[in-house]
């Protein structure tokens, strides 16, 4: 059996690569994220290789003494992981290019629908919708039902309508 204690140099390498990659992934620009993700993936690939112990001779019977053989299993796994990483990087690059084509930049954008609901909640606005046959919205009904507030000074409730930022019905997306 070969020595399985990890090499410090490789450990530092993994740390630096994954650390730099993490910083880059947290950026908003997609091309930086791609570089960051690649750095993390390669760092982790080195880590998988380390899991098999120190380097040894080629694991072929008759060429290397069994005691000096490197563990071939992590090598096989890393090869698979490298191929997968390549495919993912290619896909992310295509996506960054497409984002640039569409928007002129490659920044990851916020979810507009998410923001719309958050804004509506912040304004404490009830969605304008009709709930029964009377045809009145919830706001209008509330004003009628709770008439104990009649004596109180009127509060100016702004008429807030939900934004409509979706494309018109049936239109292209």
């Amino acid at each position, binding site marked *: 059996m070969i020595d399985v204690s990890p090499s410090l140099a490789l450990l530092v390498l993994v740390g630096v690569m994954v650390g730099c990659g993490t910083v880059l992934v947290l950026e908003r620009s997609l091309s930086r994220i791609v570089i960051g993700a690649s750095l993390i993936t390669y760092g982790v690939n080195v880590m998988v290789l380390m899991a098999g112990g120190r380097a040894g001779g080629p694991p072929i019977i008759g060429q290397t003494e069994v005691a000096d053989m490197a563990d071939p299993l992590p090598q096989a796994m890393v090869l698979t992981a490298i191929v997968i990483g390549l495919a993912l990087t290619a896909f992310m690059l295509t996506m960054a290019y497409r984002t640039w084509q*569409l928007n002129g930049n490659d920044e990851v954008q916020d*979810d507009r629908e998410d923001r719309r*609901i958050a804004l509506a909640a912040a304004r404490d606005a009830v969605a*304008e919708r009709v709930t029964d046959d009377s045809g009145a919205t919830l706001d209008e009904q509330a004003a009628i039902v709770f008439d104990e507030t009649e004596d109180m000074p009127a509060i100016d409730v702004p008429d807030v309508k939900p934004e409509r930022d979706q494309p018109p019905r049936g239109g292209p997306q």
Partner: protein
Amino acid sequence: MNPDDWTWVLGIPVLVPFAGAAFTLLLARAPAAQRVVSLVALTIVLLDAVFIGFLSLRGPLILDVGGWAAPVGITLVADRLSALMLMVSVFVTLCVLVYSFTQDLAENQRLPIAVFQPTFLILSAGVSNAFLTGDLFNLYVGFEILLVASFVLITLGSTRERIRSGTVYVIVSVVSSTIFLIALAMVYAALGTVNMAQIAIRASEIDQGTAQLIQVMLFVAFGVKAAIFPLHAWLPDSYPTAPAPVTAVFAGLLTKVGIYAIIRTQTTLFSNSNLNGVLQVFGLVTMIVGIMGAVAQDDIKRLLSFTLVSHIGFMLWGVGIGTLEGLTAAIFYTAHHIIVQTALFLVSGLMERVGGSTSLVRLGSLLKTWPLLGVLFLIPAFNLAGIPPMSGFLGKLGLIEASAAVGRPLDWALVAGGLLTSLLTLYALLRAWSMAFWQPSEDDEVGKPQVPWTMTGATIALVAASLGLTLFAGPIYSYARGGAIELRAQAPYVVAVLPDAERGTGQSHTEAEEEQGTPTTSSTPVVPPLGTPSQSPTSSPTPGGAP
């Protein structure tokens, strides 16, 4: 009939979709032929999955891929959990495939069908591989197959919205895969193997702190895929923009693959886990936070995405109880949820098609336009909320009973949280129903729906299946119970894969047997030359490496 003669059927759920994908790519210019190929491929896989389910009744079924012995070679294992998940997932995939046949005719949801069919089949192959594999690294490969296919599907047409949501999805998935890979490196460093059965043997022998660290890493990696709070934020952000069949199959399958992996980790790999309490807490928070999100939404697809997140919590709850009853209920609930959630997303696709929008503020009068659709929405909605006597109710009842039997404060908190979540699910879905189906439409131009029969038929099939799950709940529940017993006992799985606790069936021999006569660990394997025929189980390896 000897099950050992039939182990080759385990390869079909992975191989046939891949072959189908290749053919559909070749037939890119003939959409009709493409559809036939995909339909035939998935039908074969469905029949095969039912057959596997039948065979797995007699104990786990093993296939050594290429005849290579277990700890070194890749093993496909179908125990009851895998078989049940496979059956349900392939059925759902087939329904969604039929549903998608006419999607390209919809004005606002045009699918580039030439890319869609092959990618869809590859997704199916990846899901099947993830469910069947008995090797942790192969599970990673299965995840990557289905993820890469899902990347293509979620950005179909690469419109601005889909690229935006796809970006979030892709980055989150890549990060979670990386965490999984780190966990794999740790598993190999600590245990010297990635074979699940061998991990199960060795996990109790290593330092428990290390084992727990590995377990937490795996839990985080799978937690992102299963969309567990606080790792769920990507899901409602990215799923709704995809075309309806894509969202449906993602919602049904991809998160459940994560749940399946968590069940495997908690039972097969690390049986003496003390993470159960953590799982329960995350389950509780996921349920509550998810359903709160659903209540706030006024877009039907986003609302359904949040209920999806919320109900993942129920499955975690079942796994976290840590008893046989809890695990049984979790497995049953997973099967139920795959069907019901997919059905709901398919119905939302029909609603979008008929009403022209997914916004509940704009939709209206659908009940007048198409009463059948109202029924098709209401049945899975009631089922998801858990109205008796539907399968959702039975699953929740199982969870509550299992929790009550244990009776710790956390269990009672989960019972309360689960009931509250069910109530809010009912509220959110009925509100959506009354807004989409009952409230007067804004414009009266809603005409008679022109919906292809394949879309309606596929949706009806799934809704009928969810009712069938209720009708045959007894046998299915006892099947799930058998699966849970098998998982908790651990031994059937391990013995099936590694009959003598060292080597699996198939052919490969250790260097030790050749030169020293003592067994060694898998870290210095010597494998047979290519082309060596596989031999029957427990046959003695040929000396010298040549037959």
